[in-house]
């Protein structure tokens, strides 16, 4: 079971998009957890890692959009920036996993995650600045503030996401990478 079929990849993407809507709801009742673990990011990153850049991009665009339609979160004001950020996550994660082959799954995952998160956050910071406060100084402020306040969530994601990938491999729901 080395490669998954197009159909399977499509359905996994569908499930990831659905989880973009469901996970924030599950964490909504848990105070403060939502802002810490950034629940919508997890399915998109996973989709990118497991299914590749096209599906990751799709999940990143459709996830927040559907979530807004069904639960009103994120509010429409934040929607474009979230869609851009998550789309970048999904796309870059997928590309990195295609390009990097270190023979160690752990390393592949970490490099892909870190690179995509950094690029994604920078792009999102710029997008946010362009939309809400265009101006040279403000752009720098937005981007750095986004980075600085988000780091606990990033750390948790870096531990959680590989754990999920390994669990899925152990349960034989996705093929082993090597």
């Amino acid at each position: 079971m080395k490669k998954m079929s197009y159909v399977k990849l499509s359905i996994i993407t569908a499930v990831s998009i659905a989880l973009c809507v469901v996970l924030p709801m599950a964490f909504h009742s848990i105070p403060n957890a939502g802002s810490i673990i950034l629940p919508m990011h997890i399915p998109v990153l996973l989709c990118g890692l497991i299914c590749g850049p096209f599906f990751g991009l799709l999940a990143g665009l459709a996830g927040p959009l559907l979530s807004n339609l069904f639960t009103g979160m994120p509010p429409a004001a934040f929607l474009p920036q979230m869609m851009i950020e998550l789309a970048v996550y999904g796309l870059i994660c997928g590309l990195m996993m295609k390009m990097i082959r270190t023979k160690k799954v752990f390393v592949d995952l970490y490099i892909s995650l870190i690179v995509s998160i950094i690029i994604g956050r920078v792009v999102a910071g710029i997008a946010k600045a362009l939309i809400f406060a265009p101006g040279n100084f403000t752009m720098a402020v937005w981007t750095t503030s986004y980075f600085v306040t988000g780091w606990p969530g990033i750390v948790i994601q870096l531990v959680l996401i590989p754990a999920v990938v390994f669990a899925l491999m152990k349960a034989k729901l996705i093929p082993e990478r090597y």
Partner: protein
Amino acid sequence: MNKLLAGRYLVGNSLLHRLDGRVKIICLLILIALVIGSRSVSSYAISVSAVCMIVLLSKLPPAYVLGPVGRLWLFFITIFLMNALFFDTLNPLYSWWIFYPSVAGIKQGFSVVVHVVLVLILSSVLTMTTSPTEVTTALESLIKPLKLIGVPTEDVAMIISIAIQFIPTLLEETEAIKMAQIARGARFESKKLKERAFSVFPLVIPIFLSAFKRADELSLAMEARGYRNAKKRTKRKKEPLSSKDYIALCICVALCLVQFLLLR
């Protein structure tokens, strides 16, 4: 799960409810361009009155429409201050530490807030007069041109439809897993950050395992029935646009033209 699948949609029979979904989305985009293009007092007047007309035509309770705006009050203050205090570092009214309040900044801040509020109201009206299924069907139609650059739009449409169907099932499953783990002693609501952070593992890992299992089963079932991609999928019959759809489009475009001319 009816309430969930309705999203923010309020059933109604206003003119806006009856417009075609695709037309509404296109008009939304045109009107957003209108709003963002507002610079002078007169163009602001056009934008604001257009938005007010839309809200009236939707027959939605104003409190419901303004709800999302109200909830973001802190955000609006933040972006106003961001602009007012940092925008124009060259001609400040006075300066103190890293803050440079300026007239240009205040104007900028004000205009950004107004723009965002108006766009928020417009998109709220869209989601409140159009059910989520209608919106996704409309989007699926509108992205068809992307086929020309190689995007498999029918597959995208199928994936989104399946995603929507999974939402209620996965939500139930998530609640069940949550209960089971709480019964085992998981502490989701602890005051300690570390405990809360680690508590996500017993929730997130089983949810993904369960979701992927369902994905596995569905894809096996689909492949067993000969499914390869969505090209041969039976298409829904599309309803033709009516006169009110065309009129709506014309009005929006006309408003844009007027504003464009005013700018000159």
